[in-house]
């Protein structure tokens, strides 16, 4: 992202917030989002295809079932690579591969009807069959008897031997219990009091028993294996080892088979990641009431009722309404002039946000939009982070300006708030005017807000003005006395003006509303008249 927008720009146009609201479900989708690169000039057709997919997902009734599949899709990337490196997968890993394949089968059915050329799942029925040899159709996994005759034989012999051993053990136990009138507990131990002298000595001599513990009151006896038992247990141990070996061989074969389908599975992983990311964008488009923008090749940004989503959200939390703004930017340099608190900076940020969202293949928050692609987006606003680094307002601005001008030979979007507003008005005006005449000859689009008169007094510069305050007739500004009420009287629309050499002076009106002492206001009005 860094060569498209700096970190500061990302924050200042609130793109960090916007992008964090795009939430893929699977790890593949999250990775896809992390690796996302913006569409740039020349990629208009690719972007239109991307938008087409998002629109299709929004309109499709398959979206819900696809999301369901995504929720059940786990990351098998590491497991798959282990198979590729000839490692033998364990039962849990085979289970995960099986589940992945079952989920991709479901996804295949949903995606098929949408028919995108590059979002096609490769079915691997052979592999599913291999992981379900008993044809159970379940999504569980076990090293099934069906894998080999040998396994089946070993297991049935093992079972038989276990049965015989258990029976023999039970016989001996019952015989001893009956003979000596004792009881064995769950651990197979019988505790006999030392006071029963005869019994303990008889028990000690019995071939079927051994002493497993002793304390000062009693002796604990346990059943000892006889020869037959020893043989049975030895046989059982052999069988278990054979079974392990056979299972290993089976897992090895399956792992090799999986390796053979590595490329196909990787392609499915790619399709899942892309689908997930697209659906995340579709979900957010719907949630934020965004629309598909029309992408054009000539330099322009046209937006009807555009919104800054982050600002809208924070206003909503305060129960206040966001007033959408139209944009119609067509020239190389656009000046936005107008009243303080007229939303100039907000409009600037919104312009950047909408351009960035479109570049990242997202729908944009407005009623309709028509815009071109940029190679870079750049914004400089007063509350820039670099001020925190110790630069003065003007210092920070100049550093930003230099960076912006370095980019001005490419198709970039430069957004500057109050250029040279923090220095003395004479020099500030000179710098602004010079920057405007330099940038108007470049191939980039520059939008700047300014208070200086005459900056936009140039045919090559588009001049937009905030409509400004519209006060009801006879309103007494001193009586409103609440700056939060200002938005009620402010008309935030941007109106195109031509060759207008002075800009509206709403500052004194706003000062009145804010409750500045009357004598100061009157003095200021007097000075204005004298000028």
């Amino acid at each position, binding site marked *: 992202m860094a060569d498209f927008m700096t970190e500061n720009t990302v924050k200042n146009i609130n793109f960090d917030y916007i992008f964090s609201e795009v939430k893929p479900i699977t790890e593949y989708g999250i990775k896809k989002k992390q690796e996302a690169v913006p569409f740039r000039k020349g990629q208009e057709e690719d972007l239109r295809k991307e938008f087409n997919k998002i629109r299709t997902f929004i309109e499709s009734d398959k979206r819900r079932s696809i999301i369901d599949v995504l929720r059940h899709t786990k990351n098998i990337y590491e497991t798959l690579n282990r198979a590729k490196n000839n490692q033998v997968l364990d039962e*849990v890993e085979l*289970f*995960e591969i099986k589940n992945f394949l079952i989920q991709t089968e479901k996804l295949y059915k949903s995606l098929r009807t949408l028919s995108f050329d590059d979002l096609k799942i490769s079915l691997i029925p052979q592999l599913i069959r291999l992981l379900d040899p008993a044809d159970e159709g379940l999504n*569980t996994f*076990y090293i099934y008897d069906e894998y080999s005759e040998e396994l089946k034989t070993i297991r049935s012999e093992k079972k038989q031997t276990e049965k015989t051993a258990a029976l023999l053990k039970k016989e001996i136990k019952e015989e001893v219990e009956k003979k000596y009138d004792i009881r064995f507990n769950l*651990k197979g131990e019988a505790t006999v009091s030392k006071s029963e002298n005869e019994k303990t000595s008889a028990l000690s001599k019995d071939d079927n028993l051994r002493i497993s513990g002793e304390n000062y*009151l009693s002796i604990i006896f346990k059943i000892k294996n006889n020869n037959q038992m020893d043989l049975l247990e030895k046989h059982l141990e052999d069988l278990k080892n054979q079974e392990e070996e056979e299972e290993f061989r089976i897992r090895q074969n399956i792992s090799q088979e999986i390796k053979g389908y590595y490329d196909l599975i990787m392609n499915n992983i790619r399709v899942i990641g892309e689908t997930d990311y697209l659906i995340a964008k579709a979900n957010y488009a719907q949630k934020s009431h965004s629309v598909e923008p029309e992408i054009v090749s000539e330099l322009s940004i046209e937006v009807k009722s555009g919104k800054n989503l982050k600002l809208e959200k924070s206003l909503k939390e305060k129960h206040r309404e966001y007033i959408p703004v139209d944009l119609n930017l067509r020239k190389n340099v656009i000046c936005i002039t107008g009243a303080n608190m007229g939303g100039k900076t907000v409009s600037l940020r919104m312009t950047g946000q909408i351009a960035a969202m479109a570049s990242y293949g997202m729908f944009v928050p407005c009623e309709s939009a028509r815009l071109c692609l940029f190679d870079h987006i750049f914004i400089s606003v007063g509350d820039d982070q670099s001020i925190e680094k110790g630069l003065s307002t003007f210092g920070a601005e100049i550093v930003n300006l230099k960076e912006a001008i370095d980019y001005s030979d490419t198709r970039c979007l430069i957004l500057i708030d109050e250029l040279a507003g923090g220095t003395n008005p004479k020099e500030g005006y000179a710098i602004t005017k010079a920057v405007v005449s330099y940038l108007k000859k470049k191939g980039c689009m520059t939008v700047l807000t300014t208070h200086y008169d005459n900056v936009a007094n140039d045919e090559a510069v588009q001049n937009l003005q905030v409509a400004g305050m519209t006060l009801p007739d006879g309103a007494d500004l001193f009586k409103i006395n609440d700056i939060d009420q200002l938005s009620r009287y402010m008309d935030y629309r941007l109106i195109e003006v031509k060759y207008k050499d002075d800009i509206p002076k709403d500052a004194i009106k706003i000062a009145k509303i804010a409750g500045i002492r009357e004598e100061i206001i009157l003095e200021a009005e007097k000075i204005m008249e004298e000028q």
Partner: protein
Amino acid sequence: MRIIETILQNNYHTVSIVGLAKNAGKTVALNYLIEEAESAGVNIGITSTGRDGENKDLVTETHKPSIYVAEGMYVATAKEMLMLSRAKVEILETTGIYTPLGEVIIVRVRQSGNMQIAGPVSGSDMKYVAGRLRHYGAEVVFIDGAIDRKAVSSPAITDACLIATGAVLSRDMKKVLEKTAHSVECLTLKETDEKLKKIIKGQNKTCVIQNTGKVVVPDIVTSITGGKKINELIDENTDSVFIKGAVTTSLLKEIGESKFLRGIKIIIEDGTKIFTDVNVWNELRKKGLRVETLNAVNVIAVTLNPVAPAGYFFDSQVFAEEMEKYLPGVKIVDVVSEVH
């Protein structure tokens, strides 16, 4: 009546087995239960609570119950434990819950064998896993609670519990009897009446409730340190004090200093939240302290292990008889000597 029958009759679906100390015979008790369930033809699920905040070495060194799992049982255990087992299993689900010993996997046993069981650590994960074991077909899920993890028997997680105690607690049988009785008493305290429950649930914070129904919430961060502040709010009009979270010795002592102690009752979330010294508790009870609970734990039985690994042991018969005197009405089972 056998323990499994009690479980089925009461419709308990999740049962925790809690040991009052290491070597109190918890694993023997669990095996005992499994055998009962087996012979009664009940499908069961098994898991155990892991231990929180420990690195892998420590977790590996701690004893995990090695349980003989038979064909058809459902088990939730960490992947590493599964790989070590010689029982053959069908993998049903990878839960996405991770422990230092790997992801918790839910399986169905296809061929019997021994298996070490290490389940999820947190209460909410445990609840989820127990639910999944039930979903796959276990009629009753047994949860082996690690040592000092009484929390698993909280009614928020399990329906009922089995308490394993034994000679290991003390060489002095009387002390074993007292400690066990205290634990059971805490878990089975009287439940508060519905009216108070409603008030408390509306607050869900440590608070002092007046006779009039008025509720005062003391300005404290945790109940552990707030004993004095709670004490200041108690007067002749106080009906009860609800303590959210842990009830410690110092907290109880500080509240116990109130001269209005006889008139009030303390209400706790459930018995697993009590971490007080037996003597302090008993002394305050004598002074008239009344304690009630929002949720009583169903104690199905207390199992005894009369043998301590240190080599000493109690007479099984005497131990069981004495325990019955301390815990009248509670089922006592000596799972080691099988004295009922």
